[in-house]
């Protein structure tokens, strides 16, 4: 058949869709839904203006040399490419520093954003913050190196068993667990779905044998044992390092120009995050600030004051690099037991609140005063922190239906195990796997207040934090690039860092597993400021 030329008389002069009716007038805040599908948020009513800015940008680019353009690609810092209008403006600013941006789409941000050359990162635009994230309804994700045959069978029976558990049919569940043990014998349980499968079979069988309502399903470890597992997990894979690294960068930027700074760490653990920040502050142009660190951790039951021990070590390090440093430990078994007065925040300090995989523990059943997470977010806001850093597992393990939680965690943890397989030597791996196993067990076996691993995805945290009076501080292309470079230190090539509307995620292949976001408290309306 010969060529079929397109009949140009079919196209309307505006080259729009074949309907001859003009599109219905959009409500003022409506996003262009086609651009949204492509990952860009532009209000329909702003299309013309954004187009003009793009035309202007092109004119400016044409006048610049390729080397200059390449340089701004290399050196400048960019934020949130989804907000197309502000992205275009930031390019214009880079190419032509004398001309100001149009301001469309981006907030005013005077002094409240990051100071790294490319314009405000503080977004005050309520429509841009519209939490109806286009991808919000895209619930469950699957990724994974699914191997076939026996592994698929294994997953299939795991699901059927979980369904039986959800229905309360424990005798069927028990039979299926026997099946599963058999399958585990045939699959390669040294890696991939076989390895993680055995942990899920174990978790299911615990749940079947000791129903969560009756007995204790998961034995508490001693603080020492917890620390060992944590340390191996820290070494075996980059997730915690990414969290610490990204948080420290954001905190460093938030503390720029501040002389008295106070970091509140919601889970001090071994304080692994802080030496790097102390050293970075030591090297700060203009000299280090006075650094206070308040570390929250569980009370020691074995007579050791582990919080104090860590504090002393960090103090020693700070002394060695000439950073004035003060440490305070706050012992609390739960974050919602912490009262703000325990933190002794002074109004003159710049405060950073650092929460690495802690906030989800507050999503359990609430007391008479309301959900724990709301109470805690409220007092955080009262501290008026310059930055609240939140890193969380990027998955929904807090769904009300057991089967949904089970399914989602199966995929999440099998992806995580897969990443471990690819890059870790055997000795470290086993204990790191045990660390993860405890999380799995908590998600699958526990209920009520015992179930603390209530992970929720970034989409939900955005809603929650915005609702609690926080505004996003965007993490930019510099943090992104440094995170990617950090990953090259790991031999496995499957790790991927992604930018998601001002937040960064680290994942394995195309599946994000950890999400890092930064926030700033919006001052409460009733607060009276007596001075600047």
């Amino acid at each position: 058949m010969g060529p079929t030329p397109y009949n140009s008389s079919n196209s309307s002069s505006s080259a729009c869709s074949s309907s001859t009716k003009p599109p219905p007038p959009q409500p003022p805040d409506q996003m262009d839904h086609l651009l949204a599908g492509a990952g860009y948020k532009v209000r329909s009513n702003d299309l013309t203006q954004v187009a003009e800015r793009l035309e202007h940008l092109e004119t400016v680019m044409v006048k610049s040399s390729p080397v200059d353009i390449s340089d701004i690609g290399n050196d400048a810092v960019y934020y949130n490419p989804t907000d197309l209008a502000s992205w275009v403006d930031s390019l214009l600013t880079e190419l032509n520093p004398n001309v100001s941006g149009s301001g469309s789409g981006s907030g005013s941000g005077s002094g409240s954003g990051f100071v790294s050359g490319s314009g405000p990162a503080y977004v005050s635009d309520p429509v841009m913050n519209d939490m109806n994230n286009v991808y919000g309804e895209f619930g469950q994700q699957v990724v994974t190196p699914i191997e076939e045959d026996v592994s698929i069978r294994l997953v299939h029976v795991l699901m059927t068993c979980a369904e039986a558990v959800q229905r309360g049919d424990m005798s069927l569940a028990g039979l299926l667990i026997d099946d599963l043990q058999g399958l585990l014998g045939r699959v390669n349980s040294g890696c991939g779905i076989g390895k993680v499968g055995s942990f899920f079979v174990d978790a299911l069988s615990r749940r079947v044998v000791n129903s969560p309502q009756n007995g204790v399903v998961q034995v508490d470890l001693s603080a020492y044992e917890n620390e060992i597992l944590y340390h191996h997990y820290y070494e075996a894979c980059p997730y915690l390092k990414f969290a610490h690294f990204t948080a420290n960068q954001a905190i460093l930027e938030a503390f720029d120009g501040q002389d008295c700074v106070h970091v509140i760490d919601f889970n001090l653990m071994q304080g692994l995050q802080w030496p790097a920040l102390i050293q970075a502050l030591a090297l700060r142009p203009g000299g280090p600030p006075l650094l206070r660190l308040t570390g929250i951790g569980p009370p020691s039951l074995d007579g050791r004051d582990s919080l104090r021990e860590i504090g002393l070590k960090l103090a020693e390090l700070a002394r060695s690099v000439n950073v004035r440093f003060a440490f305070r430990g706050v012992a609390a078994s739960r974050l919602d037991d912490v009262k703000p007065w325990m933190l002794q925040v002074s109004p003159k300090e710049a405060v950073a609140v650092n929460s690495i995989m802690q906030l989800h523990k507050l999503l359990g059943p609430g007391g008479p005063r309301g959900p724990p997470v709301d109470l805690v977010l409220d007092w955080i806001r009262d501290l008026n922190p310059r930055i609240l850093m939140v890193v969380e597992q990027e998955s929904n393990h807090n769904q009300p239906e057991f089967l949904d939680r089970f399914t989602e965690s199966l995929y999440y943890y099998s992806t995580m195990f897969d990443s471990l397989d690819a890059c870790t030597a055997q000795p470290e791996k086993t204990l790191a796997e045990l660390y993860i196993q405890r999380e799995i067990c908590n998600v699958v076996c526990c209920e009520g207040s015992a179930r603390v691993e209530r992970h929720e995805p970034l989409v939900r945290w955005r809603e929650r934090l915005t609702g609690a009076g926080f505004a996003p501080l965007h993490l930019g292309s510099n943090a992104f690039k440094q995170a990617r470079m950090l990953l090259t230190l790991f031999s496995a090539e499957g790790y991927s860092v992604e930018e998601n509307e001002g937040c960064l995620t680290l994942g394995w292949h195309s599946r994000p597993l950890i999400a890092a976001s930064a926030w700033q408290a919006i001052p409460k309306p009733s607060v009276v400021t007596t001075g600047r």
Partner: protein
Amino acid sequence: MAGSDQINVCESKKVVPLNTWILMSNFKLAYNLLRRPDGTFNRHLAEFLDRKVPANVNPVDGVFSFDIVIDRSTNLLSRIYRPAAPETEGGVPLSTSFNLLEKPVSKSDFVPVIIFFHGGSFAHSSANSAIYDILCRRLAGLCKAVVVSVNYRRAPEHPYPSAYDDGWTALEWVNSRPWLQSKDSKAHIFLAGDSSGGNIVHHVALRAVKSQIRILGNILLNPMFGGQTRTESETRLDTKYFVTIQDRDWYWKAFLPEGEDRDHPACNPFGPRGISLEGVKFPKSLVVVAGLDLIQDWQLAYADGLKRAGQDVKLLFLEKATIGFYLLPNNDHFHIVMDEISNFVRPMPDCE
């Protein structure tokens, strides 16, 4: 030159809807930052800027997707799109989707499997880029096909022949999955791609000729071909519709082996160093050419080369279309092409 740039900007704006113009212009200008004059590529910034989306086991518009690593040694990932069965619209329990992986797609129906290679001039984009995720989802839904979108390795870090090798790996993988089989217990494989992806389609099909693997058809959307000489369309349309000769040259230099020119057969399959496909059992081809694409002369020459070799080729020339017209469903060209593709992936009347 300022005057003619004004004209360029006005011209391209007249022929596409405003949101398309914004999308394509944004790519054009952002990509300028990424191509360094010394031939290196700012991959960090490219990945930062690329808008990506996760796979979706809950059907969206009747199609669900999941990612699979199809080759661990190269970390080759593919995103698979499958139409959800009508009665499970609105929430397929995951266990069901795993059932689907155990069994063939259908015992009785002919379900095409389209192996898709995204565009990006060999350097940009990924299988999980938003624009390509949406395109594949639409293809799967409209054609009632399984779509396998291949996340091939990109230039300049992985020049020729990495992308072709990955395409070949994907083809072999698809061909050997029992669960991608349908009618007559066979996988009914089509290759499709846009821009560089279209180029990959040709070369994978070429490689398959000597193998046992049967490809039922090739779909090339604005395929990326070129050559050393400057053609009339290149000169006439340079800089006018989002693409420049200069950027085309940069991408070829990044993809082709060191020291090679654009008459290398990867770039110019029917050029002075090309091979004839006369007498070769090559799949039927659907070649879509946009009338405002500056490389159309090379694309038309490709279609012509197939024709002269006696191959079955349908050329769809869309006079007023620009590159990327298929990324947003807001124009006639999009719908025309989707219909053509849908018809193209039907079984032959005398299905062997």
